[in-house]
């Protein structure tokens, strides 16, 4: 009964979404405020229906109702509750349900928080959003229905892919989806603005918090994903340029560019047409990622089992949404002429450079991801693009960006002076040069790239502090620092945190790549091995049983200078419901890096193959990402940026403009 309620709720949601996609436009054409206002209520209705449907599916998972095909295929009674619930979105059908739920959730948030938007514009935005929801609901109902029944009812389910049975992966997809789907709001705002034929600074102010929220969630999702790869896959890597990873990284790059270009629209009324284009492309990449995971066009260890019918539908949807919005763009772009002009050296130009580099990088990642498939489709030779290509592109394109990141925030709007900014950054340049020379000297020229990376990271970190000191006038009027700290806008703190985060991540990447120590050994219990000055002693290996797996668990103690200070328990698991091995690396973070142990197969005679690592400063990756998210939170809570905030003088002129 419950699954039928969920199924019915989906059908009702589709009806509501159709109404919501059409009626507001009619209302606007007729100037009928009642029809326009319908958009809000219809959106709330869609959210409620999507919530009921998602709840029904979750309930079926929780009680292990194997009469539902989707539950039988993806769950198991022996699974811990956390993974029964994460199993809801750990498969194709369920993940689409999550898509729809978040689409309606974000749209409801716009309806709820966007009361300051003119009614006409808000109902346009919500109508575009409803149209997207229609597309996804048709996809679910006609090709991917999660509520199909199964007869006869199996006594046991298939289980969830053991690799996905991990806290990191339980939360990584929903967070990524929230980010993906959050970008739909920027998309709907862009399409609504194109329909209206006007982009105002106020538009940029409205769209920014949504982009920022989506960007933060994407950042979080990417970090959780790479953290999962780091400890679950057990070889100490954290990013592999896999097509599916790239699919999540490209919208992040474009969203980062969009965040910066919308500042130029807001402050200087320029770059409008470009910003609209970025808003469309960012969400197009979200859809593209979904397509890639499900169509079978590109293969990846992450992709769901796929089916041509689904791939074709989502390709058609992609063509309509992306093609339609870009046609609208081509038609309307000439109307979006800029009014603010700026000089070659200015904050605006720095942000333009940022945009060019980020977008180019996204384009290069796209080409690298698609190249093997495109070559094959055109009958050319068959090749595979590996990490070296992406790493080279990252170094070439991101190095100038990081150099510019130091300068940009010090340049004035409209017309800045590079000499003045340069003078202020001399200490950062000195630190960077010293670091580079020290590494080059120490390695006798063997680690030039490491020195370069370290120099860049320190340049950025020191620049961020120099900028902050300048804004606080730390050296000119030290007695006023506290009051200046309070007066500094939160958005400025946000920027500093986010930029600092990038520097810290780069530091983590550079140091851990260059100085990781790794040992592959055959050890017997009682033996001891030295890794980077730490001695790992294997005490023993014992079998353990989990709820749906059996495992062997190694017991290591780690000592420095004869003092034992930590214990590690790596596991090698075998899942019983679908025979598969997973590695559970044991990781002990200390302040200089991570101690990382993996236990592998038995090597006979009571010996075990083990892998031991010391990864210096690797946690700076997660720390830096946390800084970026914290920066986002600061910026989001800036009073001036709040959508509802601009009242009084500003909103009068804004209402005129909109």
């Amino acid at each position, binding site marked *: 009964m419950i699954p039928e309620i969920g199924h019915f709720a989906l059908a009702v949601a589709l009806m509501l979404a159709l109404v919501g996609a059409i009626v507001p436009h009619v209302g606007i054409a007729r100037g009928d405020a009642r029809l326009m206002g319908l958009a809000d209520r219809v959106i709330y209705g869609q959210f409620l229906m999507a919530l009921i449907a998602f709840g029904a599916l979750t309930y079926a998972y929780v009680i292990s109702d194997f009469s539902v095909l989707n539950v039988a295929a993806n769950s198991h009674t022996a699974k811990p509750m956390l993974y029964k619930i994460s199993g809801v979105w750990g498969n194709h059908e369920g993940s689409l349900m999550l898509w729809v739920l978040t689409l309606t959730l974000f749209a409801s948030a716009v309806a709820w928080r966007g009361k300051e938007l003119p009614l006409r514009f808000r109902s346009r935005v919500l109508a575009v959003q409803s149209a997207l929801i229609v597309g996804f609901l048709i996809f679910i109902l006609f090709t991917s229905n999660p509520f199909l029944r199964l007869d006869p009812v199996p006594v046991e389910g298939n289980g969830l*892919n053991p690799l996905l049975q991990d806290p990191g992966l339980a939360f990584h997809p929903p967070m990524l989806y929230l980010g993906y789907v959050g970008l739909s709001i920027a998309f709907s705002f862009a399409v609504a603005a194109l329909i209206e034929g006007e982009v105002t600074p106020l538009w940029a102010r409205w769209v920014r918090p949504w982009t920022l929220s989506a960007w933060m969630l994407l950042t979080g999702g990417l970090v959780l994903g790479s953290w999962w790869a780091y400890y679950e*896959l057990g*070889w100490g890597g954290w990013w*592999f340029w*896999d097509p599916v990873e790239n699919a999540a990284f490209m919208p992040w790059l474009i969203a980062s560019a969009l965040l910066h270009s919308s500042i130029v629209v807001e402050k200087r009324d320029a770059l409008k*047409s*470009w910003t609209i*284009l970025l808003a*469309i*492309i960012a969400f*197009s990449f979200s859809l593209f990622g979904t*397509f890639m995971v499900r*169509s*079978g*066009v590109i*293969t*990846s*260890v992450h992709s769901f089992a796929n089916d*041509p019918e689904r*791939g*074709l539908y989502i*390709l058609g949807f*992609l*063509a309509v949404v*992306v*093609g339609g919005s*870009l*046609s609208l*763009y*081509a038609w309307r*772009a*000439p109307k*979006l002429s800029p009014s603010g002009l700026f000089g070659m050296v200015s904050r605006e130009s720095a942000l333009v450079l940022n945009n060019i580099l980020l977008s180019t990088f996204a384009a290069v990642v796209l080409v690298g991801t*698609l190249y*093997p*498939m*495109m070559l*094959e*489709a*055109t009958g050319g*030779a*068959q*090749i*595979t693009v*590996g*990490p*070296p290509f992406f790493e080279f592109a990252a170094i070439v394109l991101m190095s100038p960006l990081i150099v510019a990141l130091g300068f940009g925030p010090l340049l004035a709007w409209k017309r800045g002076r590079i000499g003045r900014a340069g003078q202020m950054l001399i200490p950062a340049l000195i630190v960077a040069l010293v670091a580079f020379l020290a590494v080059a000297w120490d390695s006798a020229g063997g680690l030039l790239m490491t020195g370069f990376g370290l120099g860049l990271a320190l340049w950025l970190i020191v620049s961020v502090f120099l900028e902050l000191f300048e804004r606080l006038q730390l050296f000119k009027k030290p007695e006023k620092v506290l009051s200046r700290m309070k007066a500094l806008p939160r958005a400025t703190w946000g920027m500093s945190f986010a930029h600092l985060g990038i520097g810290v991540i780069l530091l983590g990447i550079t140091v851990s790549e260059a100085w990781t120590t790794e040992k*592959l050994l055959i050890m017997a219990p009682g033996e001891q091995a030295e890794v980077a000055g730490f001695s790992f002693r294997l005490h023993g290996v014992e079998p353990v049983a989990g709820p749906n797996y059996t495992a062997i668990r190694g017991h290591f103690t780690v000592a420095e200078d004869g003092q034992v200070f930590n214990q590690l328990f790596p596991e090698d698991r075998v899942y019983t419901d*679908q*025979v*598969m*091995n997973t590695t559970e690396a044991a990781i002990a973070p200390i302040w200089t890096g991570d101690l990382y142990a993996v236990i*592998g*197969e038995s090597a006979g005679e009571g010996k075990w*193959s083990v*892998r031991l690592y010391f990864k210096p400063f690797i946690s700076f990756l997660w720390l830096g990402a946390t800084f970026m998210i914290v920066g986002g939170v600061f910026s989001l809570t800036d009073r001036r940026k709040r959508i509802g905030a601009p009242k009084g003088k500003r909103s009068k002129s804004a209402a005129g403009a909109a």
Partner: protein
Amino acid sequence: MNGFGRFIPLLIVVVLVGVFLSAMMSDRNPKEIKSVMIGKPVPTFEIPNLFDDQPALTDARLRSGKPVIVNFFASWCLPCRAEHENLVTLASGYTVDVIGIAYKDDPEASRDFLDELGNPYAAAGVDRDGRLAIDWGVSGVPETFFIDGEGVIRYRHWGPIVGDSLRVQLLPQLEELQ
């Protein structure tokens, strides 16, 4: 973004959709087609051994009268890592020789890869420029071929051997061969 420039994004998307469509509709969908090589004898070849102290790898190794499995891999390929454990199981548990061919990979990196994850290969060759892979019709790594004792390709597995595929697809094929 006035003038012609405003049409560029649209054009790119139209081209991309066309490419996707042709990739999905064509028989080249690599998951579905059987290799054109199935039922044909393996091409003659001679490639260097991954380990310098061992003799070169030739097609004679695949015509020894006993079925063998040929696996194309590379150290930079993530799915290869994912399937590696299954190869080890296959080599140790099913009395069949697995021959590895390192595709477009630095031999040093291939050796490190095997040092790290274990070496399931009875012999391993180096296909540095991917010439051999072209002769075999390999579309990407990993790819696995089952060869009967006479050097005829009997089965091809496209992509990593992960999840159920070892048990459901490969082992029945192997039993049939043996």
